[in-house]
């Protein structure tokens, strides 16, 4: 019974406390900006550029599928034909290209960060940094957080673009609807703020993915099994936190 109470009540509070302390170390003054900048550029490539492919691929197909599903499910003589394009755009802008895309990235980038840092911990590379007098938390984690937060707006733009191209492909190649109707729907009642909402939300999600995954990786204790566990915990925790913060942010930004 005591164990259950500990797991439910005390453990999350303890983890939160450790996470806050780690973030305190991460956001301390960097020792040598030149070295941090080198790491930052490296992370832009590792976390951002390397994710463009999967973002484009998934967004393209999801854009196409959304378009087909809406066409099939809401088609009615009472419904204007441009509604398919309009709804596809709203789904892509408001949820898919920010929240769902970040959930996908939590799997790819989150597990990458957790396993990289976990392996560094297990192989004593983090201890080596500490012995040299380097703030290992800041040196390893800060460039990852800033790198992902820099790249995420670009990934959102790529995702929206690929989703719309996917939707057009259903019109051009599958012929399920008229491309002119789709184009009209995509432009109908466009609200620029929705794009900004997408960017704002994705910045929060990027911070969650990078910092939470880094926490689980950095605090690995043990061997390869612990690295695997940390990787799983990183993906699960950042996904749950993305969903929860999506709820809060959507209410704050759109409500």
């Amino acid at each position, binding site marked *: 019974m005591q164990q259950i109470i500990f797991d439910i009540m005390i453990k999350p509070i303890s983890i939160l406390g450790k996470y806050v302390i780690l973030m305190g170390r991460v956001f301390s003054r960097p*020792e*040598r900006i*030149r*070295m941090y900048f080198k790491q930052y550029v*490296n992370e832009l490539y590792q976390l951002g550029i390397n994710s463009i492919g999967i973002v484009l691929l998934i967004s393209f197909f999801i854009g196409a599928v959304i378009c087909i599903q809406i066409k099939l499910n809401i088609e009615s003589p009472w419904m204007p034909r441009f509604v398919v394009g309009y709804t596809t755009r709203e789904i892509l802008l408001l949820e898919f290209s920010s929240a769902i895309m970040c959930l996908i990235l939590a799997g790819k980038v989150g597990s990458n960060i957790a396993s990289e840092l976990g392996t560094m911990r297990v*192989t*004593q*590379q983090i*201890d*080596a940094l*500490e*012995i*040299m*007098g*380097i703030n290992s938390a800041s040196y390893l984690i800060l460039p990852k957080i800033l790198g992902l937060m820099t790249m995420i707006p670009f990934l959102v733009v790529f995702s929206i673009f690929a989703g719309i191209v996917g939707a057009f492909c259903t019109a051009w190649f599958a012929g399920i609807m008229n491309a002119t109707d789709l184009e009209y729907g995509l432009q109908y009642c466009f609200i620029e703020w929705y794009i900004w909402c997408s960017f704002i939300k994705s910045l929060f999600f990027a911070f969650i993915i990078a910092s939470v995954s880094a926490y689980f990786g950095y605090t690995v204790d043990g061997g390869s099994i612990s690295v695997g566990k940390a990787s799983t915990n990183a993906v699960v925790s950042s996904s749950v936190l993305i969903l929860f913060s999506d709820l809060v942010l959507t209410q704050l930004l759109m409500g």
Partner: protein
Amino acid sequence: MIQVKSISKSFEGKTVLDDINFTFDNGKTNLIIGQSGSGKTVLMKCIVGLLTPEKGEVLYDNRNLLGMGKKEKKTLRKEMGMIFQSAALFDSLSVLENVMFPLDMFSNDTYRDRVRRAQFCLDRVNLLDAQNKYPGEISGGMQKRVAIARAIALNPQYLFCDEPNSGLDPKTSLVIDELIHDITTEFNMTTIINTHDMNSVMGIGDSILYIYQGHKEWSGTKDEVFTATNERLNNFIFASDLLRKVKTEENKNKNL
């Protein structure tokens, strides 16, 4: 000189180190020996500050590590070099970049000077030819030598080696031991080595501290090992038949 005074450390109520007192001398290779689980690594981690002991003091030339502020600790860390059991080289960096890393981080020299210093250190461990390779492309022994080069890059006063011979064949172990011993004498460093390799004990043990179940059981030099009467030490050192014979021969020669 590093002095350890009354160090005690426990984990979840289990005492791992119990009131350890010892002085690690300058310009000597000081060995901490003991069975697996005796507390050698914990003691070394307490000495370098990766773990904080519950009781006691660690004095680096009379500077108390445990009473230091962040800034002082940082300055002291630049005077330390450490070789880890797993070498702990950064996988994403080449051999040269690994050795240059502490220089890039702390040295104000020009890039050319930093490269020159790193190449000097690599040359010292006979690995200049491997400077463009990555840690994954070189052998375990070479990785250890790169770790030594990285550890001495900033010209440290204190060198720590956590089981530098683990996973290496006897011949490579000998090379690593001799290298550490030579570097210690050459740069007049205070070197502490954690080991349970008896070849190291007999070869480079200028000063030996034997730990048994978390407490100091015996201390002396490599020559004193042969005449030591401590039963636990003898059981540990002369556990193999070969070494037992060596001891008998040594004692016979002394009696003659």
